């Protein structure tokens, strides 16, 4: 019945703090089919990285607590897996690229050594490739990310490479053996805009060529617009809006999505909006209602006491907001957009 590659259902990930549990991910539903590209957009601290870390179960076990939810990968619940089964997933099915390439690579081993380890680990259990094969695979992977002279690069230590090169190596490592899903956590954020552009084009070409599904985590609406098919907008641990990329930019519905779009400075000019009123809420004592309601200019009584569900309002376009339900018929408030001639 369920044909999704990855299906996250009502995931809750909390962190233990001295004040109590910080409810960082609060009931996230998300699914991706094989070979598709989706993006998760949200500001820092909204729980996008925590969600993806839960998928690979690479959270700090002492601090993280997952009270509810399931993560189905090919119909198997990752959260219920034994460590050995989980290893199989990490080994063959899902890989992840982190935001900071210099932190992802070990400074005391050469690129080659680290790459060989990844290949050996991924291929373990089968016949096991020979050293020659491993080297060939590594060289091919480095060539795939357009780095000249792969033989020399294999001998290099990470500090001898630039930031862009390091991120290319991380991508090469993530895709050196066939994967079904690649999770990219802000791969271009730490890089310059021209390098970021190159990394994104490379990533898109590689996942298309290898038919790998891609989950792109980013805070930049521009990046997801260029890279992915479907966008999930996340705010304070909730998915607030889901739509196909062109639809989301044509017709953003959630007040937060609209506010976020207004805040992005435009290349075409037109001034800067006033920003979104207020700050990100407290996760330890969250409001029982919509978590965006304290900052929302449309908020009514119902928003403060009841949590809106993610409902489909148009085909393939869902939004978690009472504004689009019967409970909220009148349209009040005003658009926060204050733009002027420049």
């Amino acid at each position, binding site marked *: 019945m369920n044909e999704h590659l990855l299906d996250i259902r009502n995931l809750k990930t909390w962190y233990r703090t001295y004040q109590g549990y910080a409810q960082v991910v609060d009931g996230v539903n998300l699914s991706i089919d094989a070979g598709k590209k989706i993006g998760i957009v949200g500001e820092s601290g909204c729980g996008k990285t925590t969600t993806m870390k839960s998928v690979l179960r690479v959270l700090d076990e002492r601090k993280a607590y997952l009270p509810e939810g399931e993560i189905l990968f090919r119909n198997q619940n990752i959260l219920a897996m034994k460590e050995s089964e989980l290893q199989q997933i990490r080994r063959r099915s899902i890989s992840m690229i982190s935001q900071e390439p210099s932190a992802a690579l070990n400074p005391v081993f050469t690129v080659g050594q680290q790459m060989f380890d990844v290949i050996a680990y991924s291929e373990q259990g089968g016949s096991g490739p020979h050293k020659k094969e491993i080297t060939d695979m590594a060289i091919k992977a480095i060539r795939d990310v357009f780095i000249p002279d792969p033989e020399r690069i294999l001998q290099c230590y990470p500090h001898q490479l630039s930031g862009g090169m390091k991120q290319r190596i991380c991508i090469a490592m993530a895709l050196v053996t066939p994967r079904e899903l690649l999770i990219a956590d802000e791969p271009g954020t730490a890089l310059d805009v021209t390098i970021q552009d190159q990394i994104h084009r490379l990533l898109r070409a590689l996942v298309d060529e290898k038919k790998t599904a891609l989950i792109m985590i980013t805070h930049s609406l521009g990046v997801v617009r260029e890279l992915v098919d479907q966008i999930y907008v996340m705010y304070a641990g909730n998915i607030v809006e889901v739509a196909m990329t062109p639809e989301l930019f044509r017709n953003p519905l959630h007040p937060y999505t609209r506010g976020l779009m207004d805040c992005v400075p435009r*290349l075409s000019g037109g001034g800067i909006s006033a920003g979104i009123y207020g700050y990100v809420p407290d996760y330890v004592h969250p409001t029982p209602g919509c978590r965006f309601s304290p900052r929302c200019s449309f908020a009514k009584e119902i928003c403060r006491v009841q949590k809106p569900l993610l409902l489909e309002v148009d085909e393939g376009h869902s939004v978690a907001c009472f504004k689009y339900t019967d409970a909220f018929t009148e349209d009040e408030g005003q658009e926060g957009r204050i733009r002027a001639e420049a």
Partner: protein
Amino acid sequence: MQKLNQTVTDSKILSVKNLKVYFPVEGAKKSAHKYVKAVDGVDFFINEGEILGLVGESGSGKSTIAYTIIGMNRPREGSVLFRGQDILKDNNRRPMSFKKDVQIVFQDPGSSLNPFQDIRQILKLPLRVHHIVPKDRLDEAVEEALDRVELPRNFVYKTPTSIGGGEKQLVSIARALCSKPKFIILDEPTSSLDVSIQAKIINMLLKLHQEEKLTYLFITHDLSLMRNISTRVAIMYLGKICEVAPTKVFYTSPLHPYTQMLLSSIPVISDEEEELKPKKVVSVGEIPSPVDIPTGCSFHTRCNRKIDRCPREDPVMREVEPGHFVRCHLA
């Protein structure tokens, strides 16, 4: 937001002439004369009331220029004139009036505010040093400084560690404004912040620009942001300025291949913006190390319109139309 170029007059508040800042390479032999040429012959000026955007990739030398103007680096060559006065002549003894008139806001408010002081102490120092108010009015003036950036007055008791990133940056701005400066250098003030917070800070800066009649040198790597706030934009690459133009001209008819590459790399969120990006320019390569700057035009290793002349001869800055300067053989 008011019209930005209202207050623009012709008077230059700051002009930088042939500025060179070299740093010796650590570990290299002194006789080898190896230097990081962070800033390598830069000329520009800022008119009173202007917002000049200085844009470039990391390692292009934009922050080094800021630090040299403010006096944190010693230049190798060149001059910096502030209101006609050469401030580099005697680097150790800069006039107090210069220190009062020129302030800086750093990129990372987390490390530019002392975590062991409270906001009151942080804001008091410039007021005391520059004798802005009599001693008995200091506390009042601190509160006024907070009012100016619309922070609540009870912030005086907080420490930088207990407030958010956006608020910290507002405190930095308040601190810069304490000495009643004429000219503020903003070194990527919003690049570590989220867009919704960035919008607030930028609006605050624009409001203060109008109210206090300030001049800004705005350093950033975000060209979309620059489009919306600056009066003129200068692009830097490997310690040299490639192109300077009034904002509108800069975005509608960029001439330098590097500017075109930068503009075409920006991820945008509407078709309208997509139209503005130069077509057929694909970003390639990376910024080379400033120790071994390529010969001739330093951009030739990444340029898609390279001709034979480029690797041999460094182009000079030319004014192609009034106010629009380009450093390229082809322009």
